[in-house]
């Protein structure tokens, strides 16, 4: 039997064009042996939930540097749940003010990362969340 691969969707929701971080993270996860599905820019929450469903991913990673995370994240969680994918772990990276972090954790975001976050930490946290 083949070993189960961790599958991660890396998406850029909203109109935010900052894609360096998403690409850095995608490559780091690949180098850690994960299969990363990269959706590209300007994804609506609906597109992200649909891709997560079709790809049967373990993790959805959102990269948001535009400040729109408080609108986008809850909507994406809601759609994942509506599709029967409430077990999918959602991670967010980008520009997230400290004040918003507890609120995001509360609605069910598993991990939050800002500028300069170590990709080793991200990899470790994803592995931990998926195998727990």
């Amino acid at each position: 039997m083949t070993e189960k691969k961790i599958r991660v969707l890396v998406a850029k929701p909203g109109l935010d064009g900052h894609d360096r971080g998403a690409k850095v993270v995608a490559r780091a996860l690949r180098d850690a042996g994960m299969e990363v599905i990269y959706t590209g820019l300007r994804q609506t929450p609906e597109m992200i939930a649909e891709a997560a469903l079709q790809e049967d991913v373990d993790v959805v990673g959102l990269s948001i540097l535009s400040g729109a995370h408080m609108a986008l994240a809850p909507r994406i969680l809601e759609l994942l749940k509506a599709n029967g994918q409430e077990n999918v772990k959602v991670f967010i990276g980008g520009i997230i003010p400290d004040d918003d972090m507890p609120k995001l954790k509360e609605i069910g975001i598993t991990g939050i990362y800002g500028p300069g976050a170590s990709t080793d930490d991200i990899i470790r946290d994803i592995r931990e969340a998926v195998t727990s």
Partner: protein
Amino acid sequence: MSEAVLQTQPILQGNRLALSRLLTQVENDTAEGRSALAELFPHTGRAHLIGVTGAPGTGKSSLVNQLTLHYRKEQKSKVAIIAVDPSSPFTGGAVLGDRVRMRDLSGDDGVFIRSMASRGSVGGLAQKTAAFVQVFDAAGYDIIIIETVGAGQSEVDIARLAHTTLVVEAPGLGDDIQAIKAGILEIADVLVINKADRPGVENTERALRSTLELAHPTRRVIHHHGRMMTLEPPPAETALWIPPILKTIATERTGIPELAEAIARHKSHLYQSGDWSARDRARLRSELDAVLQEALMNRFLNGSHREAYEQALEKVIRREWSPYEAVRGLLNGG
């Protein structure tokens, strides 16, 4: 992991989450995946399988996006897309990016896109791509488009799997003789020159045509010693299919209806010539062979006959048995 048997009924009824989860089980070759595949198998054999191959960057994903839009609009066919990208040979990880070019297809329940990492398999497909095709076929997808890795050299697997294989070229991608090898043309049912907005289309077309002439001799009129001569092609048993050459601009939707038409013509040709069932037979045979090979190897390498295998290997190393004698001994031994 749960021991529960996967229900195939929801998949036959169009439940997308069940379908997606089964694909994962199949990809990981679990017992549940295998038994579900067996249950679904009688429901397969209806879909038109279209392969899309060609070097990276020629526009395969963009073309798949456009073709699918066309099929959804003109025929209302349900379309499944399997997009294969390479796994890193060092880490086993992969970045699968074909969806980036297929954003127009989101929000349509008649389309299902699944990305697949090659997971160490060579030949442009993943080991489980054929099994994915069976799942989509049983789930009622009329058209299944398979985009290969497109590494270039050994893309023959797709021709074995698909009914209709598109080979995509683009101007300026080293298209002089090197890239347009007879090998890749032999697998082409339809040739596409994408990026026809780019300079050098004529060169690409000329190179394709001359290679094509070598592979598929046709009736030609030539000048010979000042006289017109007609060369007849060798007589053929059935009507020959000569791969047409189509020019497209995937980013501007140019040439897409014509491409869809060429694919439809190839499909009717397959039916009329009897090649449809011949290809079906060849494909299922190669799938059966692959499974048989794997099962036999597993029996001796991981299974009940492991010890007999090790003993036979020792005898071969001591030069007591040749490899042929060893295999005869192993197979006769059970």
